[in-house]
């Protein structure tokens, strides 16, 4: 009996121990073009990872593919010659601070080692100083081809035919850098991201902007983030057993070893990148939102703020589910790094992201909430809608900052969602608008360019804040239900694919014409042309309001020699009021003007905003008292709101109020000065 059962038990045990693949989702969400099976061991002494990886790749195109291209992201931290280091000041010094990654062997299905053909590519050239664009035909401006080692090409011995799959076995070693740019170690704290040889995206002709088929790989730039296929990950992480480990996957199994290490087995499905973290000090908080299991790993000094983080995450889950689409995974893990690991703050890996906070932060400074909401939002904008963050950064950071603003303003108040302190408060959208407009030169770059093409540190303000501001303005123009429909359709049509800017604009045009016909013109292209694809600014003003009495019947009448002079007569109880509008900047947007008369009458006028000047003239018994451009505050891109209104009877109340405040400030300071005598 026992003898007979024995082999069955063995088979049974093997099935449950060796195949750790307990599926998370009942149906795959994506095509799963790539599958990674990785076993990695962390040496906490040398800060090195040694990994074995089985990579499966399905050729999605009609082409015969002759090489594989990998992102070797950690080589950005190898030396000062890397693209990342040469794009700004170097931030690593000591020998042990630098990081790198090396493929030691790559074995194809025939058992052939392909390493001898490996070579690094430098697909991106230095930007042209004059045009601030990639040079078209200036090969002499190319960077020294030996310098950057973040893109690796490996020619295949046997090409991959259309629709075929390839499986290769790779051994690699990664040396983690001292934590910088979201990856590395800080003492015994680890945030391990961009850590393994990562396959690029093979774009068949016609996909996004690809005219020819080919790999879409870019060097690791200082501002750039990433672009990858939705993949399946099975990852075994081995490290000393006193470490608490978190990742973007679901923990399937843990196994202790005799040498004091432990293996953590994770599986993640349909995410674009796999990162993980380890620390001996994490405190683990678990919670649930509908079908989603929430895990928050937080360093103890910030643990008292855990609830703030988790509540913010639930706001984001709720809001995005309602206004964009469901969050499909049953799990999300996020991290509260310690101060020494602050370089890991605020980064997103779909089902896994890092928040950021500071000890002692009052409730009224909503940094932990804001970072949590923002980074979780990326689960949608580049996690589900996997845009190319290298080439079109506005599509993830811009759109995501817009949603961050909506969620924050909804959950924490539109005037209090960033700061809510006794004497000062500001909302998320307000912050975005000011960050854009307070740039030294808001016209320095349009938002439609690759992430490394932004001069003088303009990347953040243009990509995050300007994009968010014009998206908010679009929302106010076409209405919230309409923009929600746009994003719902964007999610349904492009979820788990790789949309480009034009795909988004197409949906905007489609939905806006369904709801509004041609109210905004044939399409909304004019809007994107001005605010995304150009750096034109917008500023309308009421130059003045003039009110005069109306005179008539005056002048000379009759033929010469027989002329009669009549004095003008003032028409009683009639006035001519002129409201003079001007367009001060280049951008053209139709605007509304509210005109207020002295008897309380109000007229809402519309102006297409095209000419440089326009007057509204009224001849009536009432005088115009004031007029206001954009009375409902839709035109958030208008660079100067002070000149949007004009009144003939200005109130001095605000001057009195602020002078009183200023006096009180001085009086407090003078009493403070008193402590020195």
């Amino acid at each position, binding site marked *: 009996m026992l003898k007979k059962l024995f082999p069955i038990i063995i088979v049974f045990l093997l099935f449950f121990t060796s195949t750790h693949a307990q599926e998370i989702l009942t149906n795959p969400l994506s095509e799963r073009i790539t599958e990674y099976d990785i076993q990695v061991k962390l040496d906490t002494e040398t800060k090195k990872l040694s990994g074995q990886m089985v990579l499966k790749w399905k050729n999605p195109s009609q082409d015969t593919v002759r090489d594989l291209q990998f992102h070797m992201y950690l080589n950005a931290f190898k030396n000062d010659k890397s693209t990342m280091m040469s794009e700004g000041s170097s931030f690593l010094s000591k020998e042990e601070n630098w990081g790198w990654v090396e493929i030691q062997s790559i074995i194809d299905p025939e058992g052939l080692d392909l390493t001898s053909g490996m070579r690094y590519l430098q697909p991106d050239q230095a930007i042209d100083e004059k045009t601030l664009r990639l040079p078209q035909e200036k090969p002499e401006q190319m960077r020294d081809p030996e310098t950057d080692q973040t893109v690796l090409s490996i020619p295949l011995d046997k090409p991959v035919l259309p629709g075929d799959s390839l499986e290769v076995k790779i051994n690699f070693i990664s040396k983690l850098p001292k934590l910088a740019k979201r990856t590395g170690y800080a003492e015994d704290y680890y945030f391990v991201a961009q850590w393994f040889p990562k396959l690029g995206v093979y774009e068949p002709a016609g996909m996004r902007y690809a005219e020819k088929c080919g790999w879409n790989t870019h060097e690791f730039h200082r501002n750039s983030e990433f672009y990858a296929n939705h993949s399946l990950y099975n990852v075994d992480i081995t490290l000393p057993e006193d470490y608490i480990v978190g990742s973007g996957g679901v923990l399937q199994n843990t196994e202790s070893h005799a040498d004091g290490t432990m293996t953590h087995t994770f599986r993640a499905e349909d995410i674009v990148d796999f990162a993980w973290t380890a620390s001996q000090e994490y405190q683990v908080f678990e919670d649930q939102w509908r079908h989603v299991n929430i895990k928050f790993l937080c360093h103890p*000094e910030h643990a008292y703020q855990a609830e703030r983080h988790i509540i913010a995450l639930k706001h984001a889950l709720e809001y995005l589910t309602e206004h964009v689409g469901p969050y499909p995974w049953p799990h999300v893990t996020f991290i509260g790094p310690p101060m020494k690991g602050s370089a890991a703050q605020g980064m997103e890996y779909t089902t896994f992201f890092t928040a950021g906070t500071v*000890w002692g932060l009052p409730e009224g400074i909503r940094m932990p909430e804001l970072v949590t909401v923002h980074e979780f939002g990326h689960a949608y904008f580049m996690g589900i809608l996997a845009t190319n963050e290298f080439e079109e950064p506005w599509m993830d950071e811009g759109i995501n900052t817009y949603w961050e603003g909506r969620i924050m303003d909804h959950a924490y108040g539109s005037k209090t969602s960033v700061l809510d302190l006794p004497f000062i*408060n500001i909302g998320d959208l307000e912050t975005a608008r000011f960050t854009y407009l307070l740039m030294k030169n808001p016209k320095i770059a349009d938002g439609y360019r690759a992430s490394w093409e932004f001069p003088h540190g303009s990347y953040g303000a243009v990509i995050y804040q300007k994009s968010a501001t014009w998206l908010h303005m679009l929302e106010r123009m076409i209405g919230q239900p309409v923009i929600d429909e746009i994003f719902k359709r964007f999610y349904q049509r492009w979820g788990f694919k790789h949309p480009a800017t034009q795909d988004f604009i197409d949906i905007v045009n489609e939905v806006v014409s369904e709801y509004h016909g041609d109210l905004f013109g044939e399409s909304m292209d004019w809007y994107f042309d001005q605010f995304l694809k150009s750096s034109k600014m917008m500023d309308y003003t009421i130059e003045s309001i003039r009110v005069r009495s109306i005179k008539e019947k005056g002048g000379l009448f009759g033929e010469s020699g027989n002329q009669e002079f009549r004095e003008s007569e003032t028409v009683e109880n009639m006035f001519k009021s002129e409201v003079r509008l001007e367009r001060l900047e280049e951008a053209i947007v139709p605007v509304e003007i509210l005109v207020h008369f002295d008897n309380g009458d109000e007229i809402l006028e519309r102006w297409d905003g095209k000419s440089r000047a326009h007057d509204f003239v009224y001849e009536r018994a009432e005088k115009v008292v004031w007029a206001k451009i954009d009375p409902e505050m839709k035109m958030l891109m208008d660079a100067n709101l002070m000149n949007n209104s004009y009144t003939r009877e*200005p109130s001095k109340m*605000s*001057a009195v*109020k602020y002078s009183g405040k200023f006096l009180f400030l001085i009086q407090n300071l003078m009493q403070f000065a008193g402590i020195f*005598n």
Partner: protein
Amino acid sequence: MMKILKAYKSGWTVSLNSKRMTSLVYLSYLILALLLVIPFYRLFVSVAGSSLLPDDLIRGFSATALGEFMREGGKAFGFYLKALLPWMVLFLVLGTFFQGGIISWISNDRGRFSTKTFIGNCVAYFWPFLKTCFYTLIIQIIFAVLVYLPVSILIGGDNLTDAHIGKTLIFGIAIHLLLLIWGTMIAEYTRLFIYRSGKRKVLKSLWKAFKFTLRNIHRLFGMYIMWVILPLALFIALYLIRMRWTIDPGLMIFLLFLVQQVFIWVRFLLKIQKTSIFYRYLVLIVQKA
């Protein structure tokens, strides 16, 4: 304990007799402050121009309205912020000037207040008190260095948590606050010793004050705490008032202004009260000795 209570009580009596002097001090400061505030008001009106946006500033706080407004007139307003530092120095000098008059009034508080006598005493003690002020500044700088030098070493490490840094800083600030208050006590007693001895030997009085405050430190802090409760309560009350008010904005601005000015006036009165508490305590100690 009895002495503290006695001193505290007499401080009250004296300060309640000092309403005219308080008003004089308050008004002098007010005039100096208005030299900045009146052009500020004019600038504000001219920046606001014919726009309706500043009306959004009347009720509550609007970051957008204020931000737009500051962008329009930011540079011009910057002048006023820069002017605050020299103005504080002016206030410091003015405050030092008044000390002679205040102490003379406190020490013989019977009789009628005369502005002429008051100013005369201010002038008489101005120079030694200004020197006292200078030495106090040096003492305060030394205190600050004594606190923040070790604090900066403690928080300069490589592998610290922000909680560790935050707690160390809070601890440092608390210690500094105590030293700061002690510094003001030294200054206060230096002036009282100068006044009582009739001699203008500043450094000698400073040394005496240093020893005196050190010897009586617990009682002085006891009195300080008794004294500080009222201004603290007033401050909290003022804060609560401004949070609660939702009446007609014009009336609110006026009422708030009135409350603020009363608050400032009361604080002057309370400062005089503090000096007289300390003075009374000194007298009690000296009498006993």
